[in-house]
Structures are given as C-alpha cells and as structure tokens.
C-alpha cells in the first residue's frame, strides 16, 4: 500500500500510458482527492479479500456434506445439495468401524471435561494462594508458572510420553486427562483476577469475622470468582478438545481416540486421499469426512459464537498493564 502512495513520477507516467491504452481509469495526477478515494477503496478491497480468505474454507465445509462426492467435483463449490444427502452422509459415517465416530466424540467429551474439572479444582485455589497468601517459594512458583504457560505445550508431549511409558500408563485415559488438567494459564488468570478484582479488605473482613483461610476462600473469594472460573473452564476445554499430538502418542487403540485423532484415522481410511484403499466396502468419501470435521468442531464453534466477549477479555488478560 505504501508504494501506491509514494509512487514516483516515472512510474505514474508509465501507469498512465498503460491505462490510456487499455482505457482504464486515471489515477495519480488528479490530486489528493482521487488518490484518497482510490486508496480507500483499495483498503476496503483488502479487508474483503482477507475476510474471504478466512470465510471461504468454512463456507465450503458447511456445504460439503449436502452433496455427493461426485457432485463435489462436478458442481460449483458453493452449490447447495440437499438435506437428504446430509442424512446419507451421516449414515455412511456412522457405519464406519461400527459407529467409531460416536465413540471418538464421547472420548473427547470425557477427556476434555475430566481434564477441565481437575484444572479448575486445582488451579483456582492455586491462583488464590499465589495472590493473597505469603509463603516461601511463592515468587519462584509464579515465575515457573509464567514460563511454562508461555512455552508451547507440544514441547512437553514426547517427554510426557517417555514418562508415562516408563510408568506403564500409556493407553490409560489418565495419561491424557492429567496433562490436560495441568494448566498454568488458568492459574495465572486466577492469580491476576484475585490480585486485581477481589478487594483485599473484603477478605480481611471475613477473617476478622472468624473465617478460617479455607472458609474465606470457599465462601467469600470463590463465589466472587465465577467469571474467572468460567474463563479458565472455557480456555481449558478448547485446548483439550483441540489437542491432537498428546492423545496421538498416548492412546494406541481406536476405541480410545478422541475425535481429533479419529479424524486422522478417517483420513487414512478414505479413498479420497488414499486411492490404494479399496473404496468398495467403505463409504467414507469427502462428504463424510467434511461432516466428521463439522462434528469435531461444533462444540468449540458454538462456544466461540456465544462467548466472543469473554474470549477477547481472556486473550487480553495481562495485556492491559500500563
């Protein structure tokens, strides 16, 4: 965009010559006004192109299960097929490995919710303890929490596998649930919340009234912390639901897969990407895979649609320091 403004004279002349020959609109020499109109429409165009980049794959995905595999190839990518075709795709998908898709979705729900429950039960008190109590090692724990929170969680996957392997826990649901529940980001969110939003005087008053430390937390601080609990629950759930690498290495058998690993399994079993696979008895083609993707993302997408505000707040947690 910068070049279009700073376009030097020879370039402009060159452009004009070309435009004159093609009968194009003249820009550049007409003065500031034309230029700013051109720039403004360029900006609108840019924003629209970027929006299309983000939306087009999603729209295609929504429409894909309404068409047959051959219609996906033959018809326009944005054509709508029929609802009955969605039902057909669903039946085909359900027939895959005797309803494996349902097992995968259930597994995802179990792992994600179990991990989330532990993350909250353990993480919210930890954030509280870091925020309002004093103990040896508090600062160290806080710094470690920050570093682990920022470090990509994938970096720990293979070390975790090696650990679980030597403990003979590979293949156990807890080899996934426990790492899910270790959620330093949630602890940090709770810490920030308790240091900034819950007044220290309120907690002091509870103590003066005879509350023990535990009761102060349980009956005064925790009820006030509902917003941050919801936020931690949300972020942890999304992270768990979308996690691929950890369950991929930890859980070897198909009936233990969460949906993300199930999708990978589906990919390797569809003739759409694996022509070597005999497609005759399998009916998992592109519409079925697209439907499976939609099912896999539905829970997260629904939460996204209804909690954008909370999400933004969470993304900016720690953002607004100065």
């Amino acid at each position, binding site marked *: 965009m910068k070049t279009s403004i700073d376009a030097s004279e020879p370039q402009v002349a060159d452009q004009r010559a070309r435009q004159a020959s093609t009968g194009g609109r003249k820009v550049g020499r007409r003065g500031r006004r034309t230029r700013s109109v051109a720039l403004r429409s360029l*900006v609108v165009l840019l*924003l629209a192109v970027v929006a299309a*980049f*983000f*939306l*087009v*794959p*999603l*729209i*295609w*995905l929504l429409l894909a299960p309404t068409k047959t595999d051959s219609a996906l*190839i033959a018809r326009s*990518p944005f054509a709508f097929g029929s609802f009955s075709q969605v039902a057909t795709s669903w039946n085909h998908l359900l027939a895959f490995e005797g309803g494996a898709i349902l097992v995968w979705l259930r597994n995802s729900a179990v792992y994600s919710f179990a991990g989330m429950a532990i993350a909250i039960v*353990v993480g919210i*008190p930890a954030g509280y*303890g870091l925020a*309002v109590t*004093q*103990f040896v090692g508090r600062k160290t724990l806080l710094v*470690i929490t*920050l570093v682990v929170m*920022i*470090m*990509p969680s*994938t*970096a*720990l996957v*293979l*070390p975790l596998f*090696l650990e679980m392997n030597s403990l003979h826990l590979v293949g156990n649901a807890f080899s996934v649930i426990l790492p899910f*529940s*270790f959620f330093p980001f949630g602890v940090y969110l709770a810490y*920030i919340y308790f240091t*900034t939003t819950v007044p*220290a005087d309120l907690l002091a008053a509870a103590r003066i009234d005879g509350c023990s*430390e535990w009761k102060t*937390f349980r009956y005064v601080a925790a009820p006030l912390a509902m917003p941050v609990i919801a936020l931690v629950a949300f972020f942890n759930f999304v992270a768990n639901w979308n996690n*691929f*690498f950890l369950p991929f290495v930890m859980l070897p058998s198909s009936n233990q897969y969460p949906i*993300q*690993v199930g*999708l*990978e399994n589906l*990919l*390797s079993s569809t003739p759409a*990407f694996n022509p*070597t696979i005999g497609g005759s008895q399998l009916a998992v083609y*592109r519409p079925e895979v*697209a439907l499976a*993707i939609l099912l*896999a*993302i539905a829970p*997260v*997408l629904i939460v996204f649609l209804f909690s954008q505000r909370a999400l933004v*707040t969470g993304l*900016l*947690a720690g*953002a*607004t*320091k100065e």
Partner: protein
Amino acid sequence: MAFTHRAPSVTVARRRPRSVAGYAFVSGYAVLLIGLGAAPTVWALVLAFQKSTGSGFAGAGNFVQSFKDFRFLPAVEHTGLYLLIWLVSLVVLVVGLALVVHTRGKRTSTVLRFVYYLPGALAGAASVLVWLFVLDPAVSPISFLLHGFGWTSFNQVIAPEHLPYVFAIMAFWTGAGGWILVMYGALNNIPSELMEAARLDGASPWQLALRIKIPMIRKWIAYMVILAFATGSQLFVEPQLVSQASGGLINPTWSPNQLAYAYAFQLNNFNGASAISIDLLVLGLICAALIVVRTGLFEAS
C-alpha cells in the same frame, strides 16, 4: 479488560497472612507441576544422556547422533523456512490489518474481527483436513486460483517446495485472527490524548500509524513474534497429516518434532527421541523466558 493489572499496593502485601494456608492452596497445582512438568523434563534429560544400547552415560552422544542423522538438517531447514514465512506474514499482515481494522467504524470492525477470528475454532487436525480439501484442485473452492498457478492435481499443490508456504497459510488461517484481536486491544490502549496531540500537530494517518501506533504496540509485536516462533518450531500435526494424505510423496520426518516421534515410535530409540525433544524444549523455554524477562508484559509481582 476486566483484568487490568495493577501492582498490589504495600497494604495488600502487609495483609497477606503468613501461614501454611498458602501451601495448602497451591499444593494440588504444585503436584501437577512437578509430576507433569518437571518430572518428564528431568526424565527426558536422563534418557538423552544415556546410551541407546543399554545403560551408561552417553555424554553428548545422542545429541551428536541426532545432528548427524541425514534427516535432521533438512527437517530444521524446512521448519526454518516455514517459520520465516509465517513470522514475516504475521508481522506485516497482522499489524497492518489491525491498524486498518482499528480505523474502521465500530460495527464494521467488530464484524471483521469476528470473521478473522472464527477459524481459530478449528485448531488441531480439523483445520489441516479442511485445507487438504481447499488445496485439492478437484473440489477446492479456490480451484480457479490453483489452476491459475498451473496446478491440476493435489500432489502438485503440495509439492515439497510448496510446503513451507502451505503450512504458513494454514497457521495464518487459524492463528492470525487471535493476534489481530490482541493488536487491536493494544491499539485501543493508546491514550487518546496522545493521538489527538499528534493529529493537532498535523500528523497524517500514515505518520500516525508509523510514528505513534506501531511504536506504542512494539512490545506486543515482540511478544507475538517470539511466541509464534516457539509454537512454530514445534510443528507436528500439519506435516504429519499432509504426509499421510500425500500417499508417501512427503516424507514423514518433515519437521524436527516428527523426527523425534519417528525415533520413539519407529526406531524405538527413546534416547535419540529424548535428545531431539530436549533441543525443542530448550528452544521453547528460551523463548518463554525471553518474553517474561524482556517484554515486561507479564509481571510476577
């Protein structure tokens, strides 16, 4: 912005009860931190320095061996090129888009931010699968573009030399929206008096963006770059699934993390796998420490 952070005042610090209660509150979390953070790291370190042919101290043997592996350098190069493309596009496009979106009207900017952010719901395998379709000229909604480049088959689109770009596009699709939100929030935090003063001094929108806005959100740009670098260096799902869909065209050790995976799962060489994991872990730790220490965005009061 409910989490406006203010350093706790002295009075708060004084009121903190010094008791065993603190330990009780953090105990559960500390157990998880030790068991699932520290222990695996230490265990991986132990394995990395152990001989793969049984027990015994291997020194740097496993690290040297993995460096010398004919697949290691290409994997680092692939990921490096991907990171370069991804980071440049992040800095240029995310900051550019955030600046532009920020100048739009309230409603337009809300809609745009939401649209840009929506694909963020499709992390993990789901987004890769979507892109496998989008990049397959037979069914792609952008087949006209693919054909325009002269690519008529899926394998042509995912030719090895295209992959760093392909993965950068995937990463941008799911990740850029979130960063645009962050930058937008940071832009909102610039004091309006400052902008007003600059405007009165005759600053053009361009000067405003280049001289005031970008310098004011510099910290956040640094944060984004370091974090994206750390995450990108761990690349696994994308090459794994693309390699699978390519029917053997793309080698399954495209990224270092995949190579570590192959060491553990195909060669049964846990020591070699540990060595590469430690490389990647150290890289991640350095990035995280850099953010905490240098950007000053996160204060541990």
